[in-house]
């Protein structure tokens, strides 16, 4: 039995709570990111106001947009492979939902808590490549095909530095369980100073930078938005989509940005926790119950910070060419991350 706010919650209740929580954890960040960053921050950076009509300060714009998309006709091109074409956005969105399943939001507020969490997250995140390839191939459109192939090449190339960057964290935390990684960071200390815990942002700075670059590429945001490249490939693999299937791609894009930011905050910024030394906690069992409410808020704040960085880069840089992008991954990021692993392991053994 789990206790939430002094209430006994039966097992089916817990499952229901977690399913609802998963939907909220994907859709709420996605909506917030779209409104705050895509609509407003981008507009202010570009010396314009952004949406102002729908709702106070344009806050209901997203609702209006979703309404518009849902009304649109669901077009399948004549020569497309209809079954694959219709499945593709669902696969992309499914990978996002699968990804959020391992993210811990509090000492008890998690969806699943299992030992190979990092491994699972990295594996599941590459499912979206499959969806994108399906979309690119099934559209029967040359632009979509080029976009899909570019996406596949890019996502596979950047998967590797992402995995290698995380290995530094795993070595330091000595676990692949995301919950344990959070605890290890907040209960840790840097050279005997425990007032900040040990967020791996500081000790794994190189890994953090590589991870951020890799998720930028993984999310196909500029400067790595070659697969979408609206000025050359029209819209890449999304060219032929309309209506709610396009909406699913759209949600998938921003929800994945949010979920990747959540995972970054778990791996590098201490996740849901506050430094345990502040309240005299030692491990996850001694953390008090109110962290189940405060934890998600802390996570949300950290997620917004990280998405801000992602979007900031996105709105201010032109895009790489395909070959430059691959060269950057294979010749710069991978050697640096391998060096980072070597140095981390030496420190781990020596200290």
């Amino acid at each position: 039995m789990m206790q939430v706010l002094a209430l006994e919650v039966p097992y089916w209740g817990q499952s229901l709570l977690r399913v609802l929580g998963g939907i909220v954890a994907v859709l709420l960040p996605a909506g917030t990111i779209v409104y705050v960053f895509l609509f407003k921050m981008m507009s202010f950076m570009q010396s314009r106001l952004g949406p102002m009509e729908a709702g106070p300060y344009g806050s209901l714009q997203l609702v209006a947009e979703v309404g518009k998309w849902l009304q649109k006709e669901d077009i399948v091109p004549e020569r497309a492979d209809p079954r694959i074409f219709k499945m593709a956005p669902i696969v992309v969105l499914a990978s996002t939902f699968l990804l959020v399943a391992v993210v811990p939001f509090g000492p008890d507020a998690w969806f699943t808590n299992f030992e190979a969490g990092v491994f699972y997250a990295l594996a599941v995140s590459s499912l979206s490549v499959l969806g994108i390839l399906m979309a690119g191939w099934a559209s029967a459109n040359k632009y979509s095909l080029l976009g899909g192939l570019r996406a596949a090449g890019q996502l596979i190339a950047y998967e590797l530095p992402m995995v290698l960057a995380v290995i530094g964290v795993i070595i330091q935390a000595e676990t692949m369980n995301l919950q344990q990684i959070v605890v290890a960071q907040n209960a840790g200390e840097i050279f005997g100073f425990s007032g900040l815990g040990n967020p791996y942002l500081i000790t794994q700075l190189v890994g953090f930078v590589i991870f951020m670059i890799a998720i930028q590429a993984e999310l196909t945001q500029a400067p790595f938005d070659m697969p979408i490249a609206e000025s050359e490939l029209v819209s890449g693999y999304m060219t032929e989509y309309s209506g709610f299937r396009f909406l699913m791609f759209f949600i998938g894009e921003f929800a994945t940005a949010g979920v990747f930011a959540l995972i970054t905050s778990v791996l590098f910024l201490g996740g849901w926790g506050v430094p345990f030394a502040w309240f005299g906690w030692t491990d996850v069992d001694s953390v008090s119950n109110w962290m189940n409410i405060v934890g998600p808020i802390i996570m949300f704040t950290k997620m917004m910070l990280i998405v801000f960085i992602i979007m900031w880069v996105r709105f201010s840089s032109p895009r790489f060419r395909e070959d430059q992008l691959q060269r950057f991954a294979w010749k710069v990021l991978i050697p640096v991350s391998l060096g980072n692993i070597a140095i981390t392991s030496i420190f781990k053994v020596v200290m």
Partner: protein
Amino acid sequence: MSLTDRLLGDRQRLAYIASQAADSRLNVELETEGMTLNIGPQHPATHGTLRIIARLDGEQVVWAEPSCGYMHRGYEKLAEVRTYPQVTSLVNRIDWLGSFANEVPFILAAEKLMGVEAPARSQHIRTILFELSRIANVSLFLGDLGVQMGAITPVFFAFRDREYVLNLIEGATGGRFHPNFDRIGGLKDDLPKGWIAETKAVMKKLRKFCDQIDDLLFGNEIFQARMRGIGVIPRDVALQYGLSGANLRASGVDWDLRRDQSLPMAWNKADWKVWTHPDGDSYARCWVRLQETRESTKIVDQLLDTIPSGPIMAKVPKIIKVPEGEAWVSTENPLGEMGYYVVSRGELGPFRVKIRSASFNNMSVAPWALRGVYVPDIVTILASLYFILGDIDR
């Protein structure tokens, strides 16, 4: 050395050979086929309805050819059934971003045939408006450059600052895009009150905009990686294909009709510089345009201080009949050399008008420049060649 070898740059030649070799090898092993990609007529990168047929081998272009004519409006033919004053409203729409600059060479040609010269004051104001339309045109190009590479922010700065220039043009002429302000023998009107001070303030803003673009875009490492060494057009090739304007100057040819020609305009009364660049790549073309915008603001500033007094129209009859004869006048327009060959039979309208627009000739180098490049480079090379579709399909 064969002709192809001499014309292709080293990098392009190697890329071409490599692609051929890869093609033959892969064709044996995997039976890969090339793909023909139609970029356009409806495509975000073509500023209108240009169609580029590209034969691809993977992401590499084996050959590419622009196919134009999707927006042909037949201005040369239409001009034959209009009177001389009516033709200006037609030619306004050729290069729609710098409309006033299109009127000037036609009017100058007509004046040449009639033996009329505009008074000094209207020559000055013509030059100022000419340069303003150049600034309006090229500032949008500088912003659009980012969009072609996925940086969407600069274009909004460009639209914002171009608006100031358009307001000035509207203030003086009454039309934002299509002023239709030039008359045979002078201008329609004098400048409104307060326009000169306003223009000086705007020129200051535009110089700031140029600095911003210089920092944000030209200083960006990704931008440089995308532009430098891409789409190199050597000096002799540029001359052979008849490029003009900034595209030619970026290949190291010091050629500017504003300086090299004596027209009844006021460019020689200002102190300015013709910028050239030795590289001839995409970056050079964009850089030359950036410098030219700065020079234009300087020209406008200097000319504003020295506007002479006097009438604004020369003595011309109410009904304009141009005497028999032929005349060719070309000027250095925002996109390059733009000229009109006017044949008159002594009637109310021209007998034949041949329009030499810059973009059409600039575009002709595209098949040469696009060989052996990657698909993303098609977009940047086309962007740096800078065409306006109305200027190609008159």
